[in-house]
Structures are given as structure tokens and as C-alpha cells.
């Protein structure tokens, strides 16, 4: 911060940088990758990246709701597995209309999320513990329902969720729709505003007459429901309901949100950042594969790049 006031124009640029520090980081990484491997900047590859981030993106949008209230959701990965199994069970060809498995998947995810929210708010138990319990529980349910075996032989209607629509992968369209709606909701709807309030100061929110328990439960339900959607999308992408899918997906989702500037202590953040965070993670994964970096080094480099990117971003905002 310089003591002399900046000119209006340079201040606008500074503010843009501040808001979109991650965009700059992304541009830097993107340019570096393009120089090292021109293949990176082809539309086919960029579509790939988009496809690859869509599931993590949806989960990250969902968990952003929870993080904004100051909570956390560790059960996402297991819910992805459970809902994938549920959806796949109803997606065998010719048995049910395609909307049934999709709706059931989303619904079962939303139920898990609502249960999380109710136990957290009624029982006054730390979200970490409750969602950790749900993580184990939902995984067990997924294994039990599928008897430990992948549920395969899915109908083509259902599999279309993992396919393309007018040349665009359906998953990306879903991600964009969900992210857009969530952004509008959080910034323009009353309930969205209340989510920020609860995360910003729970006690003051209660004193302002907000239904804190209801608002939190809503956030967990959204998170669970979107995990259900992600489960459906994953099942369609891998053409099977895998009871052991999605392990540790929650960590990636939370990481995307936090990289994007959402605070783990609540009240700060938003969907735009979360999407950028997911994109950054996707680009790093894709780039390291394209550059053919060996597995061991990939992990080391990935760890360093993520920390470095967040550091650069925060520095720029200062």
C-alpha cells in the first residue's frame, strides 16, 4: 500500500487484480504450460479440462454453502458413492424413465445432507464429527446396497449425462448451470444473504432473529444434494455405480473452495472463487499429465504449485 493515492484508472486495474488474483495465477500457469506443451491450448484439451473439473466443481459449489456457514462437510465422497449406487440401481435399461434414477440420486444425497444438518444443529455436535460419521455410514450403506459390487449395465438415457450435447459435454453444462444459479442465489436471495450472516457471526444472526438451525440445515442439504448430483454424474461418466468411488473427493472439493478464497471459518467467499479454484486444480492435473511428469514428482510438484498459487493470489490482494 503506497501512501500516495493511486490514479483512478490504475486503481480500477488494481481492484480487478485484487478480485481476480487467481485469474492472473491461472493465466501464468496456462501460459507456461502452453509454452512447454502447445497441445495444452487446443480446444479439445480445454474441453477435457472442463470435463475433468465438472464433478469436483459441483462438489466444491455444494461445500461452499456449508463452508460459508462456518461448517465443514467430510461426507461428500461417500455420498457420491452412495448416490451413484442408488442411481445406478434404478438405471438399468428399460426399467425406469431416466429421470427416476437421477432424481433418486439427488434426493438420497439431499437426505444425507439434511441428516447431517439436523444432527449438527439439534445435537449441537461439531460438523467435523457428524460429517465424519456420515462419511463412514454412507460408505457402509453404499457397500451394503451394492453388496460390494459395482452396479453396471446402465441405460443409454442415463449414460447420456456423461456424454455430449451439441458438441458440449453435458457435465460442463450442468456445472455452469449449478454454479450460475448458486451465485445468483447467494448474492441476491434472502436465504443466501442469511448464509453469509450465520457464518459471519452466528450469535449476532440469532439476535437478529434468523433461524440459524434452519439456515445451516439448508446448507448441508444443498451440499448433500449436489453431492448426489455429482454421484449421478460420476456414475454416468464411469458407466457404473461404484460403492468405493469418491474416496477423499471432499478434500479436493474443500481445497477448491479454499483456494478460491472461501474461508473455513465462515462468512467469506463465493462461487466465483470456488470455480476458479476447481479450474486451477484441474489445469495443474492436466498439465502435469501432458508434460509426462513422473508420478512421484507429480505429487511433489502439485503440492508446491497449489501452495504457491494461493500465496501469489493472497499476495496480490495483499
Amino acid at each position: 500500500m503506497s501512501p500516495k493515492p493511486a490514479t483512478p484508472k490504475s486503481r480500477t486495474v488494481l481492484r480487478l487484480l485484487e478480485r481476480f488474483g487467481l485469474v492472473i495465477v491461472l493465466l501464468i500457469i496456462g501460459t507456461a504450460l502452453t509454452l512447454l506443451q502447445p497441445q495444452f491450448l487446443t480446444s479439445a484439451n480445454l474441453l477435457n479440462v472442463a470435463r475433468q473439473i465438472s464433478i469436483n466443481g459441483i462438489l466444491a459449489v455444494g461445500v461452499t454453502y456449508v463452508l460459508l456457514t462456518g461448517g465443514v462437510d467430510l461426507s461428500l465422497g461417500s455420498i457420491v458413492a452412495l448416490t451413484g449406487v442408488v442411481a445406478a440401481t434404478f438405471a438399468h435399461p428399460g426399467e425406469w424413465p431416466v429421470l427416476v434414477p437421477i432424481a433418486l440420486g439427488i434426493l438420497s444425497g439431499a437426505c444425507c445432507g439434511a441428516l447431517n444438518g439436523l444432527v449438527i444443529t439439534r445435537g449441537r455436535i461439531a460438523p467435523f464429527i457428524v460429517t465424519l460419521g456420515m462419511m463412514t455410514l454412507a460408505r457402509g450403506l453404499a457397500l451394503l446396497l451394492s453388496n460390494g459390487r459395482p452396479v453396471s449395465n446402465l441405460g443409454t438415457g442415463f449414460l447420456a449425462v456423461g456424454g455430449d450435447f451439441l458438441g458440449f459435454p453435458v457435465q460442463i453444462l450442468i456445472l455452469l448451470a449449478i454454479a450460475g444459479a448458486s451465485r445468483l442465489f447467494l448474492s441476491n436471495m434472502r436465504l443466501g444473504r442469511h448464509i453469509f450472516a450465520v457464518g459471519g457471526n452466528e450469535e449476532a444472526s440469532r439476535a437478529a432473529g434468523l433461524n440459524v438451525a434452519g439456515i445451516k440445515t439448508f446448507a448441508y442439504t444443498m451440499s448433500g444434494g449436489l453431492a448426489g448430483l455429482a454421484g449421478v454424474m460420476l456414475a454416468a461418466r464411469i458407466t457404473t455405480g461404484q460403492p468405493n468411488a469418491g474416496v477423499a473427493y471432499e478434500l479436493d472439493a474443500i481445497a477448491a473452495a479454499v483456494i478460491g478464497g472461501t474461508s473455513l471459518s465462515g462468512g467469506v467467499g463465493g462461487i466465483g472463487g470456488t470455480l476458479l479454484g476447481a479450474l486451477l486444480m484441474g489445469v495443474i492435473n492436466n498439465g502435469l499429465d501432458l508434460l509426462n511428469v513422473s508420478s512421484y514428482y507429480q505429487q511433489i510438484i502439485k503440492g508446491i504449485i497449489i501452495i504457491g498459487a494461493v500465496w501469489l493470489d493472497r499476495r496480490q490482494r495483499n
Partner: protein
Amino acid sequence: MGWLLEICDITKSFSGVPVLNGVSLSLQAGEIHALVGENGAGKSTLMKVVAGLHQPDAGELRLDGNPTRFRSPHEALLAGVAMIHQELLPFLDLTVAENIFMGIEPVSGPGWIDRPALHRKTVELLDRLGLKIPPDRRMRELRVAEMQTVEILKALAHNARLIIMDEPTSALTDREAGALFAILNDLRQRGASIIYISHKLEEVFRLADRVTILRDGCHVATHPIGGITTEALISLMVGRPLANRPRSAPGRAAPPILSVRNLALGRRFNNVSFDLAPGEVLGIAGLMGAGRSSLLSALYGLDPADSGQISIGGRALKISSPRNALDAGIGLVTEDRKVSGFIPLFGPRQNMTLAALRRWCRFGWIDQAAESAVADEQIRLFGIRASGRDQPVLRLSGGNQQKVVLARSMLAGPGVLLLDEPTRGIDIAAKEEVHRIVSDLARNGTAILLVSSELPELLSLSHRLLVMCEGRITGTLDPRTTTQEEILTLAMPG
């Protein structure tokens, strides 16, 4: 004789917005120097620069004539400069003793805390202020006023040469404040210097040797206290003389809107009964811990009562959450704005509309334009000093934060407004403003229950005055005829 501290030409701005413009101030050893100015004038910011919490953009500090720069509060403490912050900074889950001696714990052997010594020293300090708080009680269990006294003891424990006190008495009653002043006089006698920030001008005249006035981040004047009158001081602070407010009209005779019967909550208060009529301002006086705040939060459903009846407009109600209270038309301005008053990262706009957001919504969709218009109007009405309606309230000065909280409760349009220390930490002009607003609300039919530790405020605003002591109502007085002595007799236990 030399200066203990010289503040030379300090300039400081936050993200391009100047807050201090070349402020200079010098301080003698053994002097109590009052610092006054409107909310947002830059008093706290200047003192944070002195205490090493902020770095100045330009200018310098000289301690004993030597240029100094404190890069952290730690360095300032080592140099004998301690500060009591306007916003309380308690360690809620540590004990009173640990809070007071944080960072300077007595140790025996390498790093091992000497518990008996810690206890002994804490008791000594508490005794100096005449307090009976157990040293091993957790801070969380204390009330705001007690916390504030612990903050004061923190600074005393450092044996500092220069103690900065940023509104140390904003939550104290006269009795505790009196004990504090005795200590400050004692400290002055021993050669320590004190910078004392307060909006209570009678304290300034009672205590200070000299007074400095800040306005809009600029140094306006420094005077020996004998050389200035209250009116002159006010006009230097505000930039204009204050109009005299007419005394409020007596309440109309109307059926009560709020009736409370035999309300009780644990050992905090019991057998509380009273009626409140529309347009009436009912004041509640009492000493620290009398149960006034507990009563208000019970009426508002934050900490619901165990037994007793509350009725609104003749209808008995069960109030078990603030939502119930708001729906019944009861609003509350809480005592501790930081904990339960506002959302720190929301701007004035979002904070002010929070409790009644529905009014600016259609199908759950916020009408941002209408909301902003309302916010701007309130900002103007309360004279809130903020860089915009979306500047995080966290970054506003303490008094402006209080105004935001007040504005929110008013916007909910309650029929019964509960005010707990509503003018805590706000400047004299704004206080007049709040008093005017309270009177206006009452004139327009709002029933107001007012808790305040400032007797003059209670006496001038209320139509009727209740006195509480140890959780019970010990008397009902007429503020026009009663005296401070009469109130104190009823408020004192025994």
C-alpha cells in the same frame, strides 16, 4: 522538563483513505492527557500507532526524545507502553489471572508457571480496584463490565510508564469508574503517564491535566483542562455548538403494551413485574451485575426466562427465541455489539437490513436498489462515518458500529424497543442524536425499555425509572423528582 512521548506529524491511511493527517501531540511524564473527538475522528487509530499495532505511513514517535518505532505491540510493551483497547480483547476460555498476566506470567524454573505467585499477584491487583472476581474464573463467565475491568488490570500489570486507555469506562457504572480514577491518580503520582480517550466529558474534566481534540484525522487543539469549558470543548470536537434538546414530554396514559409478571431466570433475576405503555420510556438503573442485561435478553428470547408471564397488548406470549420476539414486535440493541451486535464483514447496508430483510424482498429476491436507498438514508440519519454502505463494519470506528446496530433495531420497526447501553462508546453529538431518536420514537408510540449505566441519560430520557438490585426490582421512581442519592440507595445491596 522533557517530554515522555512526542507524536510528530503522524499520517496514516487505510487502502487510500486517509485517517490521520499529520497529527502531533506531546506528553509529559506524570500527566493524564485526555483525547477527545467525534466517532471516527481517528483517536483509536492514533493510539494503535503509538502502541505498535499499526505502522504510520509517515511521521515519527519519540520516546524520551529518541526516535522510536514499534513494530509490534510486544516492542511497545517492552518499552513500557501498554494499551487498553476499545474493543475488549479477552481470552474467553482462560482464567482471569491468565488474562491479566498473559505474556508476563511469573515463572519458576524455565518456563514453568508459578501458579501461587500468579494467584497472589492477581488478588493484589483486583483488590486495588476493589473487585471480588475469583482469579481462576474463566473470562467467558464474566459480564461485559467485569471483562472491561480485567482489561484495565492487564495494563496495570505491565507496570507501564505510559498507559493508553481507549474508553475504559464505557461499560462501567459510576462506582467502578470511581475506583479506576483513584488508581489513575495514584499512577500519576508515581510518575506514570496516561492517555485517556473518552466520550464522557465529565470524566475528562474530573481527571485530565490537559486535553487534545481530534477532528477528521487532524489535530485541532490542545488545552490545559483549566483553560477550557465544556461548551468550548464540544464545539471544537463537533465544529459547531450543539443545540439544546428539549426535555421529553411525559408519557401518555395508555393501556400497557408490554406486561411482565413474576419473571425469573435462575439466580440472575426473579420476581420481576412491570408494565410498559406505548410512548413510554421506562429506564432501569442498577449497579454492575444487577440483572438488567439478563432481563432484557430474556424478554427478547435470547436467554429465555424459566418462569413468569410476558404479554404483549394483553395477549400472553411464549418468547423462546429472538424470532418470536421480533414477530411480537420486540426489538433489542444488545450490550456487546462485537459479540452479538453485527456481522463483522457485512457493510452498514447488509447489517442494517438483516433483521427485517423481508421488507425489501419479493419472492425471496432482494431488491438491492431499495435496500441501498434505505441504507443510505439511515447512514445520513445517524451520521455514520463510513467510506460507503458496504465498508465492512469491522473497520468502522467503535461508535459508528454502535450506530449501525441501533439503526438495524429501528428498521425492524418494533412496538417495544429494548435498549441495553445504547450510547456505549458514541460521541457526544451522536449521543444527542440517539437521545433525540429515542424521544421521537416514544413520541410516535414506541414503548422503550432503556438500560443505561449513565444516570444523567436515564434521568433525562425516562418517564419512569425502575431500580434493580441483585436481580430484583427495588423501587420505582419519578425521574423528574428523584436524586442520584436516592437511586444509589435502592441500587446498593443490603
